[in-house]
């Protein structure tokens, strides 16, 4: 029963995240060398709360984010995980500062984000604007989310 209640509670958050993603066109970007072409919202969630650090193809995941307290990163988190900053910081503390998981690479801006993603085969990042025109320049590609 408790499990059922939690699923009912979580589903609207995930659907909201999907809808928001479609409206705001937040691209999930990976290196062009990565063989992964699509990812589910649940997988994005698991990656960015550091519970999953290996792609399905066996490649280690390197998470690239903007500064954790920045408005851009917080909005991304809320759209894709439903977590607010305070809840996320607890999760981060418990996972990363405890030494149980690998910390993300934190970059200053989106330009640095795309550059860093392109340089690491297993990396994943995000961008608030469509980056289709920048894919060749940075050696990245956009993952389809479904």
């Amino acid at each position: 029963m408790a499990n059922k209640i939690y699923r009912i509670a979580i589903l609207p958050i995930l659907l909201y995240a999907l809808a928001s993603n479609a409206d705001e066109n937040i691209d999930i970007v990976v290196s062009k060398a990565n063989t992964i072409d699509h990812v589910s919202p649940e997988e994005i969630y698991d990656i960015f709360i550091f519970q999953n650090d290996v792609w399905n193809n066996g490649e280690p995941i390197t998470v690239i984010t903007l500064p954790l307290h920045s408005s851009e990163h917080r909005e991304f988190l809320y759209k894709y995980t439903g977590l607010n900053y305070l809840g996320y910081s607890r999760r981060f503390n418990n996972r990363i500062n405890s030494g149980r998981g690998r910390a993300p690479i934190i970059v200053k801006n989106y330009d640095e984000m795309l550059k860093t993603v392109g340089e690491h085969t297993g990396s994943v990042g995000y961008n608030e604007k469509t980056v289709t025109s920048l894919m060749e320049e940075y050696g990245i590609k956009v993952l389809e989310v479904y």
Partner: protein
Amino acid sequence: MRAIYKIIMALLMATNVNALETVKSAIGETDISGHVTVGGYFTTRNNFEAGDTTDGYDLNEIGVLLYHTFNNNFSATLYSTSDFFVDYGFLQGRYTWLDTTIGLRVGRINVSSGLFGGYGPHSDGMNFLPQGTSPSRVGRAFFRFDGVQGYYEQMFKDGSGLILEASYGEHVTDSVQGVYEPAFFAIFDGSTLTANFSRPAFLLNVNYYVGNLEFIVNYSDMLGNLSGHYSNTIPLEFLTGDPADVGQFVEIDEDIQSDDYPSKLLKVGVAYAVGNFEHAFTYFRWVDTPEPTYIGSSSLGDLYVSDGISYILRYAFNYDTIAYTGYTEYTSTFGNEQINIALKSAPDWVDRGQSIMLGVKYQVSDSLQVIAESHFNKGGIYLSGEFQDPVTAVEYWNLHSITASFLF
């Protein structure tokens, strides 16, 4: 040790390090992060937990976290500070299949307590953890142990997750004498108090999260060897049980030892973040059940129970500023039942403590955060008997602190 860390940090800061650094080698990749914290505190009572009196009342610390990845299944972690070369450090091996992970850790392992994890001011968001459920009086005893840990992690399709950690090892303490309640120091010679382990502890941690809701349970079952020199003047009828001896007193000066001293710790917590707020509530219980130690015809304690609760409310004003407030309290049954029968007495409030805290964390830049915090306290149980005389110490006291942390 501190000088070496200062040189290392100066070099890192000179290279404008402001993010995680990764060093690649033939045996994998090493991620380097950490903090340089400067700050201090002052209190309206003296000698509050002055671990190193020569340095005064500072909260300065340099910490470096190394996370080395050998491959997808093996990693190593080391967190080193200017105070402890190995604050925690362990080898980690794991196997993941779909949404399930099982693994093993060996070394000095930190307790993943979810709420108020105690990994340092740069990561907790507070200068002093709530003393009712994370008493620094006992140092690091609840947060780290030397031993082995098996763990199981399960991610569910609804986005929730479960983490189980079963451990076997010896707790790591800052100060042996810190594990004793302050009232002990009224009837024992504090410098003679010792605590060892008869056997390693069994520990269990459970962490369940779903959305912005998180639950934690920490449990530890220990068996210790305690000893100390009892030095007190007590009524003679306490020894003889003879009413005719009322009004007469005798000095007791003897070594007391308690082997196989059972001690159990339990911490339960829940946190829920909603909107710009986060509520966190934690309950802590510590139960000792030693064999009674007899002095004359009377026993000296056979059950000691301590309880603590904490409630913390955090509010994120904006993306840079988080304010928090909270209430915490802690009570112990030991002390005055034993002490009040003797001439050397400690006030009732030595066995308990209540505290209200106020604080603000401000993110000055991506790499620099400042935390200012005040605690308004009643009672003496938060303070180790090493640093206060429980018989004469004041009841009401305040503590104010400020730190600045450069994060890299």
